[in-house]
């Protein structure tokens, strides 16, 4: 590939995902509304799509406030980290054969590394805000994300065992005959739950929990800095959805009447939809429930899954 091509791909991925993230503002609101028997934003522009513009403009024009008691530079840095780390994570996702920013041989590890970085944004944001609710939120976020990272990584090891590669393009290719959802259902479920927790989306939005912590780690944020957290969250949803598709649902694979990229995005949107549906339907667990559930149920389960997968793989080989 030429350098130019590379640049185009990078720009393309950036463009597409930033737009998806922005569009999700509208998608999420409309979907939530419909599931609540309402219509949702439908006034600005066709189907109310311009709500995205309105919202973005609003965020831009809000006062960019840094509380006097905050740690200024860390306060500014935190929202940047979240967006940066998620975007980096997207670099290793293969959208279609040949359309990938960085076809790393340790792609999966890179993804896990990047998603671990995300926790910094929460911890730093909450700490820099110098406010007890924010700090509580940050603490919760840290312990939640560290815990769930473990299962996330472990849940993927089954996939790695089956595909014998950390390279995502290879993993997709390994699903030519059978999607890993069939062989790794437990891995999928755990990965998806861990993904929810990693993006701290409802029902696992414990670090922000507006009813307890009045928005937790980003209580003090407004304007575009808040906007970054906001976008970061949507990007996170997209990333987890894309990874789910890549790892368990055959990535770009699909009947030939549609181009592979389209397959990829169709599948991704289904998972984004599920993310939103979960927000609409499930209540938030208690904090201790969440952590207990992780360590006491998911960890044994994922280890078992690993054991069984390994055993079967060995048995198949022999």
């Amino acid at each position, binding site marked *: 590939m030429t350098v130019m091509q590379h640049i185009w791909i990078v720009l393309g991925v950036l463009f597409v995902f930033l737009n998806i993230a922005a569009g999700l503002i509208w998608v999420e609101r409309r*979907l939530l509304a*419909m*599931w*609540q*028997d*309402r*219509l949702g934003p439908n006034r600005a522009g066709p189907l109310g799509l311009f709500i995205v513009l309105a919202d973005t403009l609003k965020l831009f024009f809000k006062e960019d406030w840094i509380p006097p008691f905050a740690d200024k530079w860390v306060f500014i840095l935190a929202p940047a980290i979240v967006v940066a780390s998620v975007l980096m994570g997207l670099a290793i996702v293969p959208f279609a054969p040949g359309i990938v920013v960085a076809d790393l041989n340790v792609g999966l590890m890179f993804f896990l590394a990047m998603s671990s970085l995300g926790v910094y944004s929460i911890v730093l944001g909450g700490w820099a805000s110098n406010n007890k609710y924010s700090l509580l939120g940050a603490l919760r976020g840290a312990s939640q994300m560290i815990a769930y990272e473990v299962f996330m990584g472990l849940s993927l090891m089954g996939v790695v065992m089956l595909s014998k590669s950390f390279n995502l393009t290879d993993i997709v290719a390994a699903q030519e005959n059978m999607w890993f959802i069939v062989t790794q259902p437990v891995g999928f479920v755990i990965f998806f739950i861990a993904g929810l927790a990693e993006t701290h989306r409802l029902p696992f939005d414990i670090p922000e929990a507006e009813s307890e912590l009045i928005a937790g780690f980003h209580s003090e944020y407004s304007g575009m800095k808040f906007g970054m957290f906001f976008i970061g969250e949507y990007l996170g949803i997209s990333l987890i959805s894309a990874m789910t598709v890549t790892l368990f649902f055959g990535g770009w694979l699909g009947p030939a009447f549609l181009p592979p990229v389209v397959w990829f995005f169709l599948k991704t949107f289904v998972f984004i939809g599920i993310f939103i*549906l*979960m927000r*609409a*339907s*499930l209540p938030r667990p208690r904090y201790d429930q969440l952590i207990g559930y992780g360590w006491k149920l998911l960890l044994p389960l994922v280890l078992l899954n690993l054991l069984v997968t390994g055993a079967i793989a060995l048995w198949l080989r022999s």
Partner: protein
Amino acid sequence: MISHLRTMWLVFIHLFKKKVTIEYPEQRVALPPRWRGRIVLTKDPDGGERCVGCYLCAAACPVDCIALQATETEEGRRYPEFFRINFSRCIFCGYCEEACPTYAIQLIPDFEMAEYKRQDLVYEKEDLLIDSQGKYPGYNFYNVAGLDAGVKEKGKGKDEEKPVDVKSLLP
């Protein structure tokens, strides 16, 4: 787990349910006559202002958004010199209407009061007074009160005897 999935399913199928919201303002809302909306000051059957400036509505108002000053005509009929409702504070609870002993202040089925400037939500008597008796036609406080304020003379009310003759000692 199963119940979670079931919940998700149940929520999901709401996508295809009929929506409860309506497309206001193209579609209008049907408001019952006792709807508590915009506040008006009504008039007596004889066309006089009903409000007697008793301050009861102001005292009843939980957000204290009514201010008025009572004054009097030559005949002794009380009326508000000014009457102000700050609708940017009003919560349309209807306590004022409940407190009003003269049926003067009434909440009517109208909520379309949005303004671009908050200041425009401050209504004065001129904005509140309507040329109607509102929900309670036929009532005139001064007909039942004992006071002679130019509406009926002492003793001319339905339930009044004619004034006592102070000079008489007859039983």
